[in-house]
Structure formats: structure tokens, C-alpha cells
């Protein structure tokens, strides 16, 4: 037993309320899950009719009211938490302590929500006690008596509830008369159920040939019967026969929904009609009906529910709803209200919560709107987007398996293939004014050996040639090519001397072939990494034709090559084995941070303002094979360039060419600037007219790409290369603004 439960039981024992303890324990054991379900069920059932009724009744104002109401319902914990605490804080300290003492057991047994409800209710009761002698008398009781009554008349409904009031009055009178509360629960059951039980008994006696007992019994919730029976069996001798009846009668439980059309036949007594009317009168119709009927059965020892009394002739069935009168409704409502707190507090809790919703204060509504409206709008927007995308996806995409099987038979790329590859952005852009028809990408001329004319990163110049006129040396010089180590020498040195590190890390080492993997084995790991990075940079730049054909011819004709030239030759010949070795080396030797910094290096050194198609494809492939993925790559690209990575290029499809944007066209058709200003602007990716603010902004964006932290895991030669390029941007910026960077 939990400590809080022990405390509660101890309190009850001191107050002589074992009967309550039994009832409460039974309810707790059997009704926790059911209570949760019914709370939700009742809440939903209450919400929808209210909203619909509001629409029908008063139009848009009511709609807004319903929306506000639903918002409050959705976020009532926040609203009520603030409301309860603020109200509690407004009371005197002694009153606060007393309320807390009264309600803490509720929190132990039913949770924080019940505690808040208890506090709110007790505060309301105190405020109303000035006008209500019963409540005033309650307040005059000692704490123990209050606690006992609080437990006996649990916070199953608001203080305005007739059931609550009746319970309070009875228990107050009982305490005032010096009676024990010990028998109170069972007496409450009998007292509350007595009028209905008597009437029902008369009805059943009069209609012995057309008994409604089976139908009534059929709606009994067996667990409810058990719950009440546990109380009945407690110690009340006068109720023992009732318990016997309940325990011995086979109860056929049928769906509650059927009870409204259960087909009660023959003459219907007022109580029977009232039972039907009760279904319509209560907001928690099903639960209440069950409770009421349960009480009747328990309270009617003479009920004959034998099978022979069941109705066999369905032709005599009459709709009872037609015969329900207002008096019946009142009677039923009274029965429901009277029996409500007896059978279970879950129904009462539902009513209490709904009552609280109805009595929302403006500040509570504001709180609900403050927290609820933005979230609700976002959720609504997200739902709409999701539905739209799903719908669009269903319309345009075929199942992958179907697509796969079709491709196996007939490999072709249709528009559906584009969509499957998420290339829809590239192909489904609106052919409006923002696009240029039939844009052709201006490729560098055959003699253009630089990656970018303005930056003049020349990867092909030999180290001996030093820096070019623009102040930039080639990557070979930066990476420290000494030129004194030929491939022939290195291969001769390494025959029979395989680097076991490379084998362990997965690089395919084959001494019989002259590939990058076997060649690398002669170098220490750090130098291997440098060469692999160099290879990748050459791969990207040469892959776009950024080389001098004469240099290529010379490299292919030369037998003895420097290390850097050997790397270039593997790249220029597009040797697949070497390319595989390089990628596999990246997978197995570089850690994730180094891979990310290689991407940063490519961003800083090779990509100018926007990735070219070759760069784009390589970046995607490189990110994927190293476990980075398109999403992470896209985020990194956007952080570096302030724009999204373009969709996967599709130069094989004329639609892709038609939909290149103007900016892409501009980038791919470099303007041969004449003035120094134009050249410097082009370095920063700008075109006149441009404001100084835009120059500063562009330079800041570029500077972020050269943050030293982005390359701190790379070698010194790579960082030196990066520094050279950074200085070029700084020079352009200073020329444009006249200010130091």
C-alpha cells in the first residue's frame, strides 16, 4: 500500500468511515481506466453537440465561442492550473492551509487534476457559503468532519449540483446529531435509490407478464454492480438480500447503446418512462442510466428477472420515447442526480469539469487563447500541408516496388522518375517570367585552366611557377609538392611493402595495379589524407573541364611524374579504380568531423556562390557515401551560402534546362568584367548597382565559410590553401569599401 493510501485509510479509520474506504478502494481498483475513458468520452460527446448547437443557434458569434471553448478544453490544464493557484493565493493563509489539507487526499488518490478541481470547488463553495446555510454549516465543522464529508461527498460535481448539496446536508445533519458516518455510504445508496426502487418494484409487480427486468438488467454494468455490491456486503444487514440478488442473478450485459431502443413492452410505468427520459436528460446519459438502473436492481428484492418473464412477442413493442413526459424527465433527472455520487465519481468528475468549462473566467479564456491559438494554428497548418503533400504524392508517384519492377524491364527515366528522386523542384517549376527559356550553360573554353576566372585558383600550374599574377598559387604548391618523387620511384620502393594500415582500414590495395590505393601505401597516414583531399579537389575541378588540354596531353605522355602530377593523371584519365580507392579511403580512414571539414573545404575553395551541376552531384554523392545525407548537406550548404542547395541537376532532360533560374543562368554565363570594381563585385557574387550594405553582407556571408573552426581538423597545407582564398575575398572587399575587413 502506498504511503498516501495508508494515510488516507488511517484518516478514515479515525473518523469511522470504513464503509467509505471500501467504496473508495473498490472504485479506485475497478474504475481508474473506466474513469479516464469516460472522462474523454463525455468530454468529446459534450464538445461536439455544443459546437454544432452553437452554429445552428447564433451563427458566427457562437462559432467563435465554440472555438474558444475548444481551445480552453484543449489547454485547460494550463488555464486551470493558473486559475486555481491564483484563486488560492487570494484567500487568507489559514483558508489556504485548510483547503490544501482537504484536497491533498484527493490528489493522492485521483491525481493533480482532481486536486485542482477540488481546490477550485472548495474556493467556490466558500464564496457561495455566505448565501447557503448548508455550506455555512459545513464550514463551521471541524477539520476532521469536513474531511470525512469531503470524502463521503467527493468532488463529483460542482457545488451547484443537487446531489452534492443533498449529500452535504445529510452528512452535516448526521454529524450535528452526533451520528457516526460509518453507515453513511450504504444509507446514502438506499436513501437515494428508495423512491425509484419503490416505483420500479410496483411497476414490475403490476406487469408480471411483461416484465422489463431483463431489459433493465441488461444495461447493468457488471463492474458497477460489483463496485456497489462491495459496499453493500460490507456490514449492512438490511441490504444483505439486495447483495444476494445482485450476486446471484446472471446479468446479461448488452451494449449500452441498445438501451434506448430496448423495446420495453406493454404498459409502461412512470418510472420506466422516466428511465428512458433519463437517457435524454443527462449529458452523460449512458453512465447515468447505468448507475440509476443498478441502484434500482439492488434496491428491489422482489424483482423477478427469470427468463420466462422476458418478452417474446416483439410485435407489442412500442417506442417509449413518445410517451415520455416532462414530469418523467424531472423524475429521471432527480433519480440521476440522487444516485450520481453514489455509484462512482467518474461521472461526477466529468460533470464537474464541464461545469468548470462553462464557468470560465475571461482571464482563463485569454490564457487558453494565448497558449492555444498559435499552437492550434500551427497544427492546423501542418495538417493541411501534410494532407496536401500526401494527396499530391498519391497523384504523382507510383509505388516504389511497381516502379522498381518496371525499371528492371525497361530502364527509362520519365517524369515520374524525377518525382521519385525528389527532382520535382527542378522540373515542376512554373514556366513563368522568372525563368528563362532554353538557357544554355556557358562552359569554360578549352584553354581555360582556372576553376573560376576571377579567383584564378589554378590547380595545374607546377609549383616551380609560383603564384600567378592574381596572387593565387595552385593547390599543388600549397599542398607541398616537392616534385622530386616520381611514381616510378615510389612504386619501385613499395613493391612487397604493403601498408597494413590501409588494408585494415578497407582500402583496396592491389600491388599489381597502378592505382591510387596501392600507390598510397608508401606514405604515412597524414600524407595519405592530404593526397586524398588533393585528389578530391582535382576530381571536382577537372570534372568540369577546368584544365588545360595541353597539360593533360603532357601528363599522359610523361613516364616519370611527381606525386601531384600522378594524382592529376589519375583524375584526368578518370580512372575508376582510383576514384573508388579515394572514396573508400574517405569512408574508412577519415572520421566524421574530417569528412564534414572536407565538405567545408570544398565549399570554401571550389564552390563560388552556388554549386555547379558537377559540384552539386559530387557533394550529394560524397555526403551520402559518408553517412551525412542530403538533409544535413543541405543545411550545411545553406549555412555557407545563404541559399538552398539546388535540386539534383538533370542535364539529360530538356525540361531541366528550361527551368534554370535567371540567377543560375547569370552564374553560368560569367560576365567578363572590364573594370576593377566589377571584378571585385563578381568575387563577392554581386553585380552593380549595389549598396555598400549589400557588399558588407556578402562579405560576412563569405567570411563565415572561412571560419578557422571549420577546418581545424585538416592539415596545415589545407588550411594554408583556405587562407589564400580567404585573402582574395578580403582584398576584393577592401577594394570595394576602402575599409579593412
Amino acid at each position, binding site marked *: 500500500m502506498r504511503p498516501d493510501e495508508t494515510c488516507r485509510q488511517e484518516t478514515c479509520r479515525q473518523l469511522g468511515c470504513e464503509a467509505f474506504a471500501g467504496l473508495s478502494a473498490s472504485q479506485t481498483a475497478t474504475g481508474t481506466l473506466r474513469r479516464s475513458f469516460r472522462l474523454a468520452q463525455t468530454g468529446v460527446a459534450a464538445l461536439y453537440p455544443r459546437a454544432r448547437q452553437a452554429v445552428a443557434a447564433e451563427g458566427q458569434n457562437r462559432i467563435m465561442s465554440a472555438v474558444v471553448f475548444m481551445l480552453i478544453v484543449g489547454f485547460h490544464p494550463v488555464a486551470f492550473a493558473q486559475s486555481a493557484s491564483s484563486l488560492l493565493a487570494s484567500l487568507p493563509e489559514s483558508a489556504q492551509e485548510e483547503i490544501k489539507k482537504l484536497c491533498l487526499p484527493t490528489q493522492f488518490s485521483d491525481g493533480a487534476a482532481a486536486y485542482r478541481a477540488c481546490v477550485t470547488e472548495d474556493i467556490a463553495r466558500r464564496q457561495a457559503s455566505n448565501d447557503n446555510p448548508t455550506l455555512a454549516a459545513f464550514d463551521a465543522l471541524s477539520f476532521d468532519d469536513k474531511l470525512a464529508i469531503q470524502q463521503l461527498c467527493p468532488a463529483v460535481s460542482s457545488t451547484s449540483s443537487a446531489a452534492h448539496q443533498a449529500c452535504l446536508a445529510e452528512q452535516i445533519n448526521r454529524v450535528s446529531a452526533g451520528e457516526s458516518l460509518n453507515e453513511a455510504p450504504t444509507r446514502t445508496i438506499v436513501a437515494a435509490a428508495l423512491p425509484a426502487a419503490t416505483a420500479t418494484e410496483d411497476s414490475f409487480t403490476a406487469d408480471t407478464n411483461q416484465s422489463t427486468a431483463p431489459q433493465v438488467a441488461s444495461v447493468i454494468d457488471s463492474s458497477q454492480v460489483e463496485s456497489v455490491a462491495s459496499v453493500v456486503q460490507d456490514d449492512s444487514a438490511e441490504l444483505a438480500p439486495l447483495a444476494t440478488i445482485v450476486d446471484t442473478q446472471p446479468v446479461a450485459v448488452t451494449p449500452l447503446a441498445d438501451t434506448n431502443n430496448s423495446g420495453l413492452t406493454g404498459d409502461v410505468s412512470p418510472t420506466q418512462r422516466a428511465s428512458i427520459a433519463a437517457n435524454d436528460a443527462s449529458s452523460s446519459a449512458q453512465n447515468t442510466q447505468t448507475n440509476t438502473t443498478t441502484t434500482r436492481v439492488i434496491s428491489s428484492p422482489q424483482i423477478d428477472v427469470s427468463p420466462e418473464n422476458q418478452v417474446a412477442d416483439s410485435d407489442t413493442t412500442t417506442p417509449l420515447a413518445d410517451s415520455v413526459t416532462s414530469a418523467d424527465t424531472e423524475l429521471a433527472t432527480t433519480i440521476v442526480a440522487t444516485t450520481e455520487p453514489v455509484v462512482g465519481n467518474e461521472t461526477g468528475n466529468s460533470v464537474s469539469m464541464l461545469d468548470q468549462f462553462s464557468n470560465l473566467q475571461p482571464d482563463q479564456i485569454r490564457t487558453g487563447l494565448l497558449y492555444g491559438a498559435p499552437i492550434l494554428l500551427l497544427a492546423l497548418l501542418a495538417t493541411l500541408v501534410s494532407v496536401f503533400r500526401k494527396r499530391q504524392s498519391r497523384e504523382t508517384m507510383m509505388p516504389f516496388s511497381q516502379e*522498381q519492377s518496371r*525499371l528492371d524491364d525497361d*530502364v*527509362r*527515366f520519365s517524369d515520374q*522518375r524525377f518525382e*521519385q*528522386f*525528389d527532382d520535382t523542384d527542378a522540373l515542376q517549376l512554373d514556366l513563368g517570367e522568372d525563368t528563362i527559356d532554353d538557357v*544554355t*550553360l*556557358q*562552359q569554360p573554353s578549352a584553354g581555360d585552366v582556372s576553376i573560376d576566372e576571377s579567383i584564378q585558383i589554378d590547380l595545374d600550374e607546377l609549383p616551380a611557377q609560383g603564384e600567378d599574377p592574381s596572387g593565387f598559387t595552385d593547390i599543388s604548391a600549397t599542398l607541398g609538392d616537392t616534385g622530386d618523387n616520381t611514381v616510378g620511384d615510389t612504386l619501385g620502393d613499395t613493391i612487397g611493402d604493403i601498408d597494413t594500415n590501409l588494408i585494415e582500414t*578497407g582500402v*583496396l590495395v592491389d600491388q599489381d595495379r597502378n592505382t591510387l590505393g596501392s600507390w598510397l601505401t608508401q606514405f604515412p597516414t597524414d600524407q595519405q589524407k592530404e593526397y586524398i583531399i588533393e585528389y578530391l579537389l582535382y576530381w571536382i575541378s577537372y*570534372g*568540369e*573541364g577546368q584544365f588545360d588540354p595541353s597539360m593533360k596531353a603532357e601528363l599522359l605522355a610523361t613516364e616519370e611524374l611527381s606525386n601531384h602530377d600522378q594524382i592529376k593523371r589519375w583524375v584526368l584519365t*578518370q580512372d*575508376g*579504380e582510383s*576514384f*573508388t580507392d579515394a*572514396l*573508400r579511403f574517405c*569512408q*574508412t580512414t577519415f572520421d566524421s568531423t574530417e569528412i564534414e571539414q572536407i565538405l567545408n573545404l570544398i565549399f570554401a575553395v571550389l564552390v563560388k556562390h552556388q554549386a555547379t*551541376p*558537377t559540384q552539386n*552531384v*559530387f557533394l*550529394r*554523392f560524397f*555526403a*551520402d*557515401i*559518408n*553517412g*551525412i*545525407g*542530403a*538533409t544535413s548537406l543541405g543545411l550545411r550548404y545553406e549555412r555557407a551560402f545563404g541559399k538552398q542547395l539546388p535540386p*539534383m*541537376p*538533370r*542535364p*539529360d*532532360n*530538356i525540361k531541366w*534546362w528550361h527551368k534554370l533560374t535567371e540567377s543560375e543562368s547569370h552564374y553560368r554565363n560569367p560576365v567578363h568584367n572590364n573594370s576593377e570594381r566589377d571584378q571585385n563585385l563578381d568575387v563577392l557574387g554581386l553585380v552593380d548597382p549595389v549598396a555598400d550594405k549589400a557588399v558588407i553582407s556578402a562579405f560576412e556571408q563569405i567570411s563565415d565559410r572561412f571560419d578557422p573552426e571549420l577546418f581545424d581538423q585538416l592539415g596545415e597545407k589545407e588550411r594554408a590553401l583556405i587562407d589564400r582564398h580567404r585573402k582574395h575575398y578580403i582584398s576584393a572587399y577592401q577594394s570595394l569599401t576602402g575599409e579593412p575587413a
Partner: protein
Amino acid sequence: MRNYYSALELAPAASNHDIEEALVESQAADPEMVEEATPILSDPDKRQTYDYLHAQFSAYAHAMPNLVSSKILDTNHWDQRLVEFSND
């Protein structure tokens, strides 16, 4: 990406004349492919860009089977993109 050279049974370095002849010969067999390939391969600039990507995809298709598959996060459906280059 489509591998037009493979479909036309040509080498990537094929001359414009060879390409024109191959397109004409394939017109009857696969008119849809010819319709798609003609504006790409007949335009020098478009063909150059296509050739760069063609070389990239050929290298990727060659490398893919030999890479460490457990490291690959195939967010770009490379198996499908490279299917026409696997036999190059």
C-alpha cells in the same frame, strides 16, 4: 540520369556525326529516347554539361559496389540513378 551513349551504343567521345547517325537509326526502335536525347546531344553546350555529369555518374556506378555499404546513407536513390551506368 539517362545514359544516352549507352542507349545509342556510342562512346562518350563520339563525334557529332556519329551521334546524328545513331539518333536516326534509333528513331524507329525508341522514338521517345531519341526525342529526349536529340536536344541534349545536338547542342554543344548542353552536351558538354551532360558529358561532365555522364562521367561523374559512370565513376559513381563503378565505385558504388566497392564502397562500404554500411556507411552509405542513400538519400538520393543512387541505385536508381546509376542503373543505366552500371554496365558502362
